[in-house]
């Protein structure tokens, strides 16, 4: 945030998160590129996935995040049922010693859209087991409300399907989720470029989570910087309060006498 302008920090499940841009690590061509992008993004919280040790393309991401002082947010990516997601979350808590989990329960590979039935079931089980649950959810105000009622620490509606870069397809739904939510709303998935990250914040989201838009950009470090500025700009604009839309022009200079 700009010097002299006061904002409150993002708080998720009682934890202060020093940046409103949450990053993913998927899609980066190597750890050096990822490191430069993470630093440029200013992020304080970043996702990782859980996979078999012998199948892992590289396990250096944990050491990288520790070295950069970035908190890890393990996800349950790839899980298709509540049972799979709950086990993956428990393994992540054991391996990474964090009770934070980005809960993903995907319905099919073609859309990667959340399965709302399995998602809510998994969220209820994980909250009961003491996790701080951040569910990746559809842009559905009713489901968001039910996830909050289940005890989730945030709700993370998609702007559009994972990796599509189609931006926020239903801004009105995001606004409705924001208007009703008593927990932070994190716009998660679908962001393609900086204006869309700014739009998410202008709609009232408390944070943005993105990966592909940065890691697969032509210049990931530069795009990460752009996203950081966009999230800050969108947040400031939201707090400032935009002017109402008008049908006809309204002169901004005094009338000629």
């Amino acid at each position, binding site marked *: 945030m700009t010097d002299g302008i006061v904002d409150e920090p993002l708080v998720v499940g009682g934890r202060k998160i020093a940046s409103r841009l949450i990053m993913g690590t998927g899609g980066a061509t190597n750890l050096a590129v990822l490191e430069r992008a993470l630093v440029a993004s200013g992020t304080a919280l970043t996702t990782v996935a859980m996979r078999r040790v012998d199948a892992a393309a590289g*396990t250096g991401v944990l050491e990288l995040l520790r070295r950069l002082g970035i908190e890890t947010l393990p996800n349950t990516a790839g899980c298709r049922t509540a049972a799979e997601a709950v086990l993956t979350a428990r393994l*992540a808590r054991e391996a990474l010693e964090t009770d934070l989990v980005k809960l993903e329960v995907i319905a099919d590979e073609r859309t990667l859209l959340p399965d709302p039935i399995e998602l809510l079931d998994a969220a209820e089980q994980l909250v009961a087991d003491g996790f701080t649950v951040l569910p990746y959810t559809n842009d559905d105000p009713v489901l968001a409300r039910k996830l909050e009622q289940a005890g989730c620490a945030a709700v993370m509606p998609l702007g559009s399907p994972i990796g599509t870069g189609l931006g926020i397809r239903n801004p009105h739904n995001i606004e409705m989720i924001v208007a009703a939510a008593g927990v932070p709303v994190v716009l998660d998935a679908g962001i393609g470029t900086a204006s869309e990250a700014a739009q998410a914040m202008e709609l009232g989201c408390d944070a943005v989570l993105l990966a592909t838009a940065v890691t697969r950009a032509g210049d990931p470090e530069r795009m990460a910087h752009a996203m950081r500025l966009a999230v800050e700009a969108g947040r400031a604009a939201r707090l400032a309060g935009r002017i109402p839309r008008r049908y006809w022009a309204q002169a901004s200079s005094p009338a000629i006498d």
Partner: protein
Amino acid sequence: MRIWINGKSHELPEPASVHDVLTALGAPSTGVAVAVDDELVPRADWARYRLAADAKVEVLTAVQGG
């Protein structure tokens, strides 16, 4: 006896513990977690957890993703 480690068949001498599996796999001791037959085995139980024949052991760690 046969143990399934991350989907692959391994022969381990009896008795085999979760700790023996991690050694056989050459897995790092930190940043990993283990499930046996779809149940988490806490780190504190690795040495004393005795595996049955044909146990399915999954050893996971964090990778880039999300």
